């Protein structure tokens, strides 16, 4: 609801036609202000999508991510810095607070500059491991750009990333190859479901320290697809933190560089399109889901005599109380935000939304099927029979996937037992019919007896004489 009001107001206030879902204030932190000219095409692309950029150095004293308790900037882009840390205003603690306040961060690293230890320890908290040597470089002798790195092989030429696994949507697909010059490889911890690699190194790549391991590499940090060149972390509040291993791939000269692959095929890089997709995902322009109406109602004919007949077609929407074994219809409306507007959301092919009806643990977990579409949302519905357990239950839609906003909608209802007059009547129970017939026979016999007693004459046969 708050998003609805905020985006409506933003739509009124703005004239640009592309917009991040939250808002558009982007802070770029770079040590040398002159360096920012190297990325001018990238800044231009961001501004044309509606971001308002501010540039600051980490050393500037009045740099603050928060203002009056709220975020001063909605997004943060950190370029590699030569100094040991990011200054007193961007401590790892403050960056974590920034993410907890729904700020998005794109952190760019470079193999040319040693990564500050503050950054390494921040990434360690997120379960992202950087090589222990400060100077680490990813090379691949099989997938490099012959035009620029024929000797050193430190400019990797990669194909567009594929979906991570079956059932996930790929937001980073581009046509063409992606040049990744002088990247710092990362290794992602296995335990966290919040981490996902966006771009992985090919299987012959490895990371080494050019200062110490110039001759041969004996101790491996990681190789192949275990090296993640671009990693994504989506916090539980759906704030996004992307670690970009190579800041140089955002530079103007790599946006449409002519590259030559190992096999001699020449072409242009797709870095510009990839940078657009990467920044769009990180700054909440792609992969953002929004929940509209959530409705549930009783899906049965009302019993005779209790219908509230004030109007035809009256539907008691979202009642607070149901009865056990009621048939209930549940629907939820979900839209996806793509750059500028909301579109109906379709889950990836083998994926499905699920509705849980749960007390402490789910009694039902059933798929939510898309039944209809409005102009900018899809309505998913499910019908279920409430369990024969009374109590306080929740309708829960818990849809969390890598690269998509976390959806968690909970509606609480009471489920009561049968009332005394809701049980089936005895004449409806076929096994009771002999007993009901017995009652009828008794009643008829009684009335006949009363009549006989009142109006009988004494019997004329020998029975009387015997008495």
């Amino acid at each position: 609801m708050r998003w609805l009001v905020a985006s409506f107001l933003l739509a009124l206030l703005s004239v640009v036609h592309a917009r991040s879902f939250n808002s558009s204030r982007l802070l770029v932190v770079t040590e040398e202000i002159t360096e920012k000219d190297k990325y001018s095409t990238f800044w231009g692309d961001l501004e044309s999508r509606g971001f308002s950029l501010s540039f600051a150095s980490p050393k500037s004293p009045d740099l603050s991510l928060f203002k009056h308790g709220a975020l001063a900037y909605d997004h943060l882009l950190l370029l590699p810095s030569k100094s040991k840390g990011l200054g007193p205003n961007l401590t790892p603690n403050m960056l974590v607070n920034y993410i907890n306040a729904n700020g998005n961060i794109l952190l760019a690293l470079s193999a040319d500059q040693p990564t500050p230890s503050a950054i390494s320890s921040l990434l360690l908290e997120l379960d992202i491991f950087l090589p222990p040597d400060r100077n680490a470089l990813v090379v691949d002798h099989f997938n490099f750009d012959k035009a620029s790195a024929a000797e050193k092989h430190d400019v990797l030429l990669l194909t567009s990333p594929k979906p991570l696994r079956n059932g996930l949507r790929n937001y980073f697909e581009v046509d063409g190859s992606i040049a990744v010059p002088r990247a710092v490889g990362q290794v992602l911890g296995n335990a966290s479901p919040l981490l996902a690699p966006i771009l992985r190194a090919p299987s012959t790549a490895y990371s080494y320290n050019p200062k110490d391991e110039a001759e041969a590499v004996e101790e491996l940090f990681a190789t192949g697809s275990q090296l993640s060149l671009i990693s994504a972390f989506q916090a539980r509040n759906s704030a996004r933190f992307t670690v970009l291993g190579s800041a140089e791939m955002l530079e103007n000269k790599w946006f449409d560089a002519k590259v030559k692959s190992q096999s001699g095929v020449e072409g242009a890089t797709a870095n510009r399109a990839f940078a657009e997709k990467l920044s769009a995902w990180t700054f909440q322009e792609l992969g953002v889901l929004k929940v509209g109406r959530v409705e549930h109602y009783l899906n049965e004919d009302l019993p005779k005599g209790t219908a509230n007949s004030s109007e035809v077609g009256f539907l008691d929407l979202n009642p607070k109380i149901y009865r056990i074994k009621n048939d209930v219809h549940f629907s939820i409306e979900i839209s996806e935000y793509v750059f500028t507007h909301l579109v109906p959301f379709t889950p990836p092919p083998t994926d499905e939304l699920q509705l849980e009806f749960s007390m402490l643990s789910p009694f039902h977990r059933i798929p939510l099927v898309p039944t209809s579409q409005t102009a900018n949302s899809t309505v998913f519905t499910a019908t279920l029979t409430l369990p024969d357990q009374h109590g306080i239950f929740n309708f829960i839609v818990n849809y969390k996937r890598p690269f998509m906003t976390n959806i968690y909608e909970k509606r609480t209802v009471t489920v009561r037992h049968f009332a005394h007059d809701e049980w089936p009547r005895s004449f409806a129970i076929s096994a009771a019919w002999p007993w009901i017939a017995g009652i009828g026979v008794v009643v008829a016999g009684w009335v006949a007896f009363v009549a006989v007693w009142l109006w009988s004459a004494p019997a004329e046969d020998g029975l009387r004489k015997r008495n």
Partner: protein
Amino acid sequence: MRLPSSLALAALAFSSACLAASWSFDDATLTVSSKGSGADGGVKEKLSPNSPSSKAITLPAVDTLKIVLTATEGSTGKRPHQAFLTLHEPTTGLEESFPFSLKENGKGKVEVTQKDLPYQLLTSASPLRASLILASFGSSTPYASHAFDLTLQLDTTAPPTAPTTPERYTPKPVINHIFKFQETSGPRVISFFFTLAVLAMLPVLFGAWALLGANVDHLGKAFGSAPIAHGLFLGSVLAMEGVFFMYYTSWNLFQMLPVAGVVGTVAYISGSRALTEVQERRLAGER
């Protein structure tokens, strides 16, 4: 030692003009042996750079797989920057690389035991594809080729401990609540049969009464002398049964009680008058 890049480029141009060397290897032997068995026990196999080994290699639990080779650039033995033995699991696509420790002249070895392998490769259902990768900086063509297939013989007495399954965001299993047992009635045929049996008892009862001499002979006489009393009384008895029927089907207690009260009062008053009439007949000796 790193040359300045311009010098390196010049050297590159010069060398590429001379020859485009390619990495390869010579004198490669693969052995699978356990400690203490020496060179006699275990598998010994020669590897060729051009074609993968046709023999499937098995690595038992306590043994060591050792590959000794001499890496060559062109025709001279040299140490490449990257000399890996990569094990690739075909179904999941996971792989792990083990670096060779080579000397300056390119000679060296790598040793792999089951302890070095991660859980996912150890428990692979199909054999692992082992490739040799020799590559370095510069313009020489790198070498990467499938060398042999490796099957692992796990120690059945001490199976590898599975790591805890990490939590991933995927659809969870479908749950449909299993409802408690619902009582049902028996077959309707049996109900019908017994209902008819019970209903048939009514004529039997009336027949038995008739045999015993039951009659309503004084009906005319009673109605002749006290028609209102008897009529009201019989009516109120029938009405009471009607009240009970309505209470059974639709009325609630508060609807039924007033009616029952009225009917009962009528029954009491008319009944006492009717009984007076019966008493008159009894005193007249007709009962």
